[in-house]
């Protein structure tokens, strides 16, 4: 079957989610939400009854009844296995910047702020970084402001951190403070990834192409996931799952 880039990314993210108990997805994150719901549908098919998926912007898909602190308390209890973060800048050590570009005293660009990243990055076992603009502007040698650090000293209590970074061009994994290029999406090249990445990263001598979603996965996304997404992400759902003709990828 043909598929859209969004479907490729969601499939890859769902693979990273794996078999876990609870995936939480922040606001304005339609592709991670698609991936989380896909993981849940796969869990249903295997009779697992997991993961539990919390979509933070959705009253229907969250269980919170203890106020805004509950998400963070829940993570602190070790009850959130996967979360997603992005960054105005992301550097090669996995540091993310959601605050500003330029000198702290006189920044040139201001982003909204760190949200919960300075906490969740440290306590959610699998944080999947997500940035659809893969450029030297976003993937930098060193972030100007560390909203949350990619790694910590050994004596720092840390139960979480980044495990992967997915972009519009490729997929990296993260371990021991370094990114490793795992695969390049169809239509993109390793050279292109090197050219547009501001930090050094590991890579095998032959970098495979990111595998296309299987027909089974595409059907799950389109038939089961899309209807669940429509209320929270109507525009995204319409574009990716309803009016596909306009944007097909071979």
């Amino acid at each position, binding site marked *: 079957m043909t598929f859209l880039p969004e479907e490729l990314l969601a499939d890859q993210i769902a693979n990273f989610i794996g078999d876990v108990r609870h995936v939480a997805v922040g606001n304005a994150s339609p592709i991670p939400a698609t991936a989380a719901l896909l993981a849940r549908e796969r869990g249903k098919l295997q009779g697992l009854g997991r993961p539990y998926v919390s979509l933070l912007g959705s009253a229907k898909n969250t269980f919170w009844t203890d106020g805004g602190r509950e998400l963070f308390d829940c993570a602190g209890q070790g009850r959130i296995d996967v979360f997603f973060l992005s960054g105005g800048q992301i550097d090669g050590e996995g540091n993310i910047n959601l605050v500003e570009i330029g000198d702290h005293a006189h920044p040139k660009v201001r982003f909204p*702020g760190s949200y919960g990243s300075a906490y969740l*990055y440290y306590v959610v076992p699998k944080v999947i970084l997500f940035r659809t603009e893969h450029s030297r502007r976003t993937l930098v040698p060193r972030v100007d402001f560390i909203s949350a650090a990619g790694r910590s000293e050994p004596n720092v209590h840390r139960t979480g951190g980044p495990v992967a970074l997915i972009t519009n061009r490729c997929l990296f994994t993260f371990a021991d403070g370094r990114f490793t290029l795992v695969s390049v999406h169809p239509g993109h090249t390793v050279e292109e990834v090197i050219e547009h990445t501001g930090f050094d990263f590991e890579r095998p001598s032959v970098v495979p192409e990111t595998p296309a979603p299987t027909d089974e996965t595409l059907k799950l996304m389109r038939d089961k996931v899309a209807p669940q997404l429509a209320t929270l992400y109507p525009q995204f759902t319409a574009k990716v799952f309803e009016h596909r003709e306009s944007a097909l990828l071979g």
Partner: protein
Amino acid sequence: MSLVQSLDEALSAITDGIMLVVPREVCGVPMAATRALIRRGVKDLHLVALPTSSMQADMLIGAGCVKTLETSAVSLGELGAAPRFTSAVLKGQVAMKDATCPALHAALQAAEKGVPFMPLRGLIGSDVLKYRDDWKVIDSPFGNSDPIVLLPAINPDVALFHAPLADEYGNVWIGRQRELVTMAHASKRTIVTVEKIEKRNLLDDPLYAAGTLPGFYVDAIAVAENGAWPLPLPDTYKADGEHLALYAKMAASEEGFREYVGKYVLAMQVA
């Protein structure tokens, strides 16, 4: 003075220079009250947005009401950056105390519990911590060379929010929005705008009582119908997306923001 007051009376305790705490967008943002504060021209607020804000902080900053902003993020969400916030920060017109969401919740809980600080995991190695000289790092006495951040309690002068319902005893139904309870517990005074006041006692009904902030903590209540507009009120009404888009467009420039304020704030009747 009676607990139930006009909007301007109820807001009279929000004077220049105080520390004011307001809730995030999904909790009942007091927008009618925000417009009234801008009309009155309150100045030099230390605004604590628990833990984030959208149009409310943007408007208060644009109107020059805020000296210090303590929050984890300000954004108009899908409508993009909060323009007056962004401009003011870049021009150095507002002093930023950047935080992270759970730190603000925890610091308010410290005030709620009457303790001087609360510990929090995470943060170590971040510049959020680096630029907060009011936050301390200690070796946990229960660990082994295990550094942990201690956040000083945030004790606001006033907590201000909007809720669906109050009763004649000042009890306010807040439903699942329990950070509103913590805000009220942590603050010296609590001012609430509500959609309506019913002649009953919410605490007499176990179903309502479970989601009620007791009037004991409430200093003033004003009725402000549709008082969160154009933002949503949980379980009551949705956001006015069209108006929010209009705001985002007009507030993109200083002049446009002034025009917006003239048209939708200054010219409006008090609710």
